[in-house]
């Protein structure tokens, strides 16, 4: 187990903090990674993490925190409950993971022309919030204002463009001046889309995540399935959130053998992509024999 500190600090030497731990982590291990979801450099930390441990490890985890008080300490460590840090737990057993979200593109792409860590300042060289408002109005007719932002913005997250039409979701949770603050970084020059999801698309996505896991060929029923599901999906699905969980259970053949948590950002990687920090997604993982 390793605690990595200074997650929002530009001067933090993450590799230096993790190198000795990496040396003692055998190949084909699984890393459970928990980060303070309010930290501003989570994606960079995960890049350094993957840069050091590489593709021979599998990763699963999520962001901790409170949706009402983002600044409160939330990472449970051996030295107390802390903020702005990460906790790595190495388990010498491989794991299969799957990731899904169920969000679809409704507007874009927009070029992130100015950003710092998890704050988007400009999109297509225009103030980010103004561009965001306009795009949603044009696509859906809905007006997003400073007043209703907290209740409405979670319906329209950003999606960072990936090959094969895939997107990595970024939730925006606050307006700061003309800028938009997200859960996790959005790098400059990144192409982003505005996404929209429905109850059905989200629930189907979670079923798809379970299907991918069981279809991976190495699914071992004797191990529990670990689930990290974004808290924002609870707010979005409301009463139907239960359907998401039962849908997963129904797809997994070992009913009732699931444990997990609601998270503020999700982490997963089983060797077929780089390690990423997801938002508004569901990640599943299950250990298997080497």
């Amino acid at each position, binding site marked *: 187990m390793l605690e990595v500190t200074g997650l929002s600090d530009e001067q933090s030497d993450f590799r230096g903090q993790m190198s000795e731990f990496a040396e003692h982590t055998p190949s084909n291990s699984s890393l459970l990674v928990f980060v303070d979801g309010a930290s501003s450099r989570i994606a960079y930390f995960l890049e350094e993490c993957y840069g050091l441990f590489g593709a021979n490890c599998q990763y699963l985890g999520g962001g901790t925190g409170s949706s009402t008080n983002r600044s409160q300490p939330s990472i449970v460590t051996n030295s107390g409950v802390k903020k702005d840090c990460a906790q790595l737990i190495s388990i010498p057993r491989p794991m299969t993971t799957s990731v899904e979200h169920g969000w679809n593109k409704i507007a874009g792409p927009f070029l992130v022309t100015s950003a710092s860590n998890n704050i988007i300042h400009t999109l297509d060289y225009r103030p980010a919030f103004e561009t965001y408002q306009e795009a949603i109005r044009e696509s859906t007719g809905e007006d997003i204002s400073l007043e209703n932002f907290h209740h409405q913005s979670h319906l329209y997250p950003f999606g960072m*463009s990936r*090959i094969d039409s895939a997107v990595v979701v970024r939730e925006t949770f606050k307006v700061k001046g003309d800028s938009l603050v997200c859960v996790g970084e959005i790098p400059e020059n990144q192409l982003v889309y505005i996404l929209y999801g429905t109850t059905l698309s989200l629930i189907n996505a979670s079923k798809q995540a379970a299907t991918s896991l069981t279809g991976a060929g190495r699914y071992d029923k004797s191990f529990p399935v670990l689930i990290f599901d974004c808290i924002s999906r609870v707010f979005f699905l409301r009463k139907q959130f239960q359907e998401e969980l039962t849908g997963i259970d129904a797809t997994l053949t070992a009913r009732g053998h699931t444990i997990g948590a609601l998270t503020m950002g999700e982490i997963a990687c089983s060797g077929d992509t780089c390690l990423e920090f997801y938002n508004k997604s569901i990640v599943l993982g299950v250990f298997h024999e080497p």
Partner: protein
Amino acid sequence: MSFDKELVSIQYSLALLVGRDLQLEPMLRKFMPTALKMLGGTWGAVWLKLDDTVELNLREPAYTYPSFNTAVLPGYEDFVEKLHLHVRNAEHQSKPLAIEIATNIFYIFPLQKLGLMAIRRTAALPDKFLLALQPVIERLTTACIACLEHEELLRTQQQALNAVRKAEEANQAKSQFLATMSHELRTPLHGILGLTSLTLDTHLSEEQRDNLKSVKSSANGLLSIIDEILDMSRIEAKTLRLHNDKFQLLPMLENTLRSFAARAEEKGLYFKTSIDSNLGCVVEADSNRLKQILINLLDNAIKFTESGGICFQASVAPPHSDRASVSFEIQDSGIGISPASKEKIFALFTQAEGSHKRKYSGIGLGLAISAKIASLMHGTIKVDSVPGQGSTFTLTIPLNKVNEALPTKKPQDQKAANTSRKILLAEDNPVNRKVAQKVLEKGGHQIVLAVDGQEALTAWQQEAPDLILMDIQMPNMDGLEATVRIRQEEALSGAHVPIIALTANAQESDQQACFDAGMDYFIAKPFSPKKLLAVINDLLPISKKDHNV
């Protein structure tokens, strides 16, 4: 969204990720992880050929993400072997190569002739996509070239800085050598000059007197050379400093010219002087350095003139301004200087006649030093010359006139001058000790001898001398430490014995070190007996008064 639009979007985004740093590793660090995320890759590497003459070393990538050491890729050896087979072709391929190893596909993109980039995926990429990445790869190639050139530039800069540092170290070593050499030469010279002067004051035959005068003259010549070498070393080390004082220009000129008039007469040359009456004023400048330039120019004029003579002219313009430009013109009817030599005479170690068959003595530093000093004084030295007819050197210097009278020097207290004082002489060199002892005896003083700093300290405690002459470099305890200890003990009683540094360490830094240690006066060896006695007399009455207070 259509495939084409998505393709252009990814292409555009990737292109903007390239070249965001001028250093190779950070530039690739800013590109590769995000590029892999966009392209669904799990590993990426760049190999670069740092030299056109060697083959690409596929076992040592210039950059990998994730790190190469920990992410031991399954089948990497197999991959390298296959890559070797493809590498030559790859340089000429427009389309990237794909190498399949187990469940992975390695896409190899040639970076022109500079190297290769590889990304690893678990699924194939459509050809259209691979071709669309070409502009990004070209951009990456350019960025890598820029980074390598930048690194080369930094390396060159570092080498230049190292060279400068080494040159400075060498220069420092040279300065140290010169300082040591100066000390080592001055010490025996002091003995030669001192004992020669003392012997010249005794009864001698005419032949003995002539011989000794030649010895003295030769020793003085050697001393001038040492002084010139030291000046040159100061100029090169940029430590030559001017020490301005207020003085009357006219008496200084008259004193300087007097000895040259005598030399000219001895050589059968005429020596004419014309000094502007407006120069009878007090000015502020470094009188010693100004005198040094004039002596050098006059010395050269006499040296290089066999018949005819020398005209010295001093003028001021504008005559009544507080800040006037003073010109000193030294015209001779000597051998003259050829146009080619005129350009070189102000360079170090140069004489107009540079061959081994030189007729005229000198090491060729005088004019270079004079020109440098003139420049430090914001002045110039110009030369007009016609070979065979003579030369005219003109020194022009701005001088500040001071509208105040200099304090008149009090006449020497005859009683004090003639009073016998107890003087402690700390000197380790037996010959120099003998010279100083004889000079002091001649001045009627009582002498206490010490051969090192420790003995000097004890003698000071036991004998309570009126004044101390302190050598600097001495065994056991040097003169500086002895002085510091004396001053520390004096601090308790409030007493103050004058201490004169008498040393062959003639550098300005040595002088400063003496004053820092608490000495009152500094006399460089070789010294003139007259000067030493005059300084002693100057210091002693003051010190007596202090004692009474």
